[in-house]
């Protein structure tokens, strides 16, 4: 088991190195020049001389060969220095520290909510197969995966923010500042973010529970006359959740993707908004480092999922 985990960790590091290579070189493919874009948005380079532009290149290390730039970035990241944002005139580490708590706060809330709701809904749907509840759950799960998330956000703002005035329309407050306000403001964005994961988990749970219910040992348990609660808790729940765990990680990627839109719609200062802005400003340093952090999180979570999956299901061999 330990050897297995170590092996997986080494592979994860290899993957991360490939991630850095991909993100670094793809950013170089972007047409245009971050400094020119920065200056262009600022003023127009009317009276900026070539020498001054060159000075800026040197300042941001953009005059060096790509390989050197890559090395500087990577060695910086390892030492905890992610470089300086050309656009924001700010240390990238500091920018990310501002943004990640926001994204993680919403992300964790959604993660918890979509997993709990998804599992509960999937269970109920399976146990009440063919009944109204099942129909409703199945339907909701289909809608969850078929609505553009930004559009859903705008519809919700309109309906629950403006029309009914139940929730704030936009904005974000850190839970450390004002927990109640934070929760109140989170309702709509978290709903949007969790809908897709919710749908995926519910569908998975439903089919997984149905499969477990058809197994002999569950039938035996029923025939022994155990109460419904006991059968569900002792036999069905545990066994049917194992495959659900594998796809929890998939929901994570969906959620980070969803944040790109949700942060824009609800004016939330998270990483998604930072990333979109930085991609368009071609702010290399920010995009590189932020995607690296996201990829690390996704890869780590998937690693944990894989390991716990094996731990839960003794049938898995560690090869």
């Amino acid at each position, binding site marked *: 088991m330990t050897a297995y985990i170590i092996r997986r960790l080494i592979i994860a590091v290899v993957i991360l190195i490939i991630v850095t290579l991909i993100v670094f070189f793809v950013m170089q493919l972007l*047409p*245009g*020049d*971050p400094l*020119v*874009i920065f*200056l*262009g*948005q*600022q*003023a*127009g*380079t*009317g*009276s*900026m*001389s070539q020498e*001054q532009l060159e000075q800026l290149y040197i300042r941001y290390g953009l005059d060096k060969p790509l390989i050197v730039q890559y090395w500087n970035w990577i060695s910086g990241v390892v030492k905890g220095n992610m470089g300086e944002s050309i*656009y*924001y*005139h*700010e240390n990238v580490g500091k*920018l990310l520290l*501002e943004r990640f708590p926001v994204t993680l706060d919403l992300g964790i809330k959604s993660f918890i909510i979509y997993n709990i709701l998804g599992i509960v809904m999937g269970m109920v749907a399976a146990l009440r*197969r*063919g*009944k*109204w509840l*099942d*129909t*409703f759950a*199945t*339907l909701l799960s289909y*809608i969850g995966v078929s609505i553009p998330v930004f559009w859903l956000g*705008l*519809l919700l*703002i*309109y*309906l629950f*923010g*403006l*029309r009914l*005035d139940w929730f*704030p*329309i*936009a*904005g*974000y407050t850190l839970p450390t500042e004002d927990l109640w306000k934070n929760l109140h403001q989170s309702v709509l964005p978290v709903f949007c973010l969790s809908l897709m994961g919710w749908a995926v988990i519910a569908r998975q749970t439903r089919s997984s529970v149905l499969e477990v219910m058809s197994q002999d040992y569950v039938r035996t348990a029923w025939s022994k006359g155990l109460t419904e609660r006991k059968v569900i808790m002792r036999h069905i729940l545990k066994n049917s959740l194992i495959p659900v765990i594998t796809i929890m990680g998939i929901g994570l990627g969906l959620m980070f993707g969803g944040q790109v839109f949700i942060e*824009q*719609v*609800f*004016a939330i*200062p998270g990483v998604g*908004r*930072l990333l979109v*802005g930085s*991609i*368009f*400003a*071609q702010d290399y340093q920010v995009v590189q480092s932020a995607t690296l952090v996201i990829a690390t999180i996704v890869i780590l979570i998937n690693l944990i999922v894989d390991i716990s999956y094996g731990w839960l299901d003794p049938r898995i061999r560690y090869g």
Partner: protein
Amino acid sequence: MIQTGIVNSHKGESIKMKKLLLVFLSIMMIGVMILVSCGEPEETTQPTTQPTTQPTTTAGPVSGGILRGVITGGPLMMSYRGQMGPGDHSYMFPAVEYLVEPYVDEQGNRGWIPFLCESYAIDPVGKTFTYNLRDGIKFHDGSILDAEVVKWNIQQQIDSGWWQDADKVVSIDTPDNSTVVIHFTEYSNQYEFNWGWTAIWSKAAWEANAGADKSTTSEQGIAWAVDHVVGTGPFKLKEYKRDVSITWEKFDDYWQEGKPYLDGMEFQIITESTTASSLLQAGDIDMWNQGHSAQDWKELEEKGFLIKGYWPGLPMALWGNTMDPESKWQDIRVREALEYALDKETMAQALGLGYYVASAQIAPSTEWGYISNLPTRGYDPEKARDLLAQAGYEDGCPVTLLVQAVPASIDAGESIKGYMDAAGFNVTLDLADTGRFFGSVFGTGWDDLVMMFYGMDVNYLATYMSWFSSDPKSNLASFARPPEQVAMDKEAVLIADTQGQIEMTERLCRYLYEEARLCPLWWVPSKTVSYKYVHHEILRHGFIRVDWENVWMDPH
């Protein structure tokens, strides 16, 4: 619901299917009905969304209150001019004032007035610019505005490296504590803009934060200036949360007695216009400063909000690449064909919902440079085709139109494509995100044709100089200035008398139009959207001054 276990599972499935479809369709229908009914004008709205309809115009300004607004971005640099653009300066207007500011009077006449100085004088013969400063102006940090501070600011303007005409400064003298004189190598009538409209920051604050290197371009000072500003303006920076909000509080020692009226201002930074509009309608904000479009003006005006329009606005235009010798836009017939291909009136009407004004020539009718008897090129697609055929494009002239990927520009781009295609062009739209768009326009240049605004300054000579001249403030990279134009530009800046300037501006605008150097489209007026209890004239002076000190609100 009569189902009995496994035996009936088949039937169960089919019943379930029917229910599923039924529910799906009914949810769709309900959703549609909710939204459609919400879309209709409602008479039973919540009291909070109902703007005050009776503005109390008779009563004078009332002090107090916090103005809540929405802007679309924030400053990237707050107080180091070497790295600030127009956007940064405008976000800092509450805190920062200038030696000379633009003004506009009740009749709509515009010009420059001394602001932080009592008076100023420009001597065309002696080639000097003399400022007589006001007494007793304090910065937010308590330091005093004097000749030394002004000299330091002007010096920083020169040192920061990319200021216009910096190479023409001989010396800066401070004969006494309230007088500053700049000596130039030569005269230019653009000095008010270039050297009078100079932001003044606290020297003491800079030097206290610049570290060991106390120079005007100290690295540590620049780093401090990213998110600090110490000016003389009516409001002090309270808090800036990047991409979230910027908060201002009243500056008690402000030099204009009794102002500002507001206790403070809070601007949220929101890019999505639908969200901002909802905030306004829900009463969460008092004013929607930036990011609205003609559709919003129309919708909100009908709902009783205050849509205030000001001259000037942003003139939109199509600019061919005239820099590249191989470009098709070197051929005046192609440039003229573009003018004839477009029905500007209809486009302005439809896209601007009655708010845009179609432009036949470079300058608007109220400005210098407008020529009343200029023969303009009206909508005539046949003529466009003929001209294209003469230029060798019988079978269609392929054009790539670069457009900024923001809704209003995309809309315009689609219409332009429609008209151009109908007149013998063959347009491909290239929607560029903001970065690539401005990077191309101001940096690397555009290949073919671009839709881009130009400015609107205190007078049209200044506008011409900023945008079209051979020594521009905003340099459109693929817009060529032929030698004959360069010669006129050199002549133009030397004219000191107003009448001569007006005549020269006309000559320059006539030249641009007759040569069809660019194709003006329409003016997008500058507007603000707010509740009627907000009293302001903030965009009256154009884009380089916002008089936040004069804004006040009725109790509401």
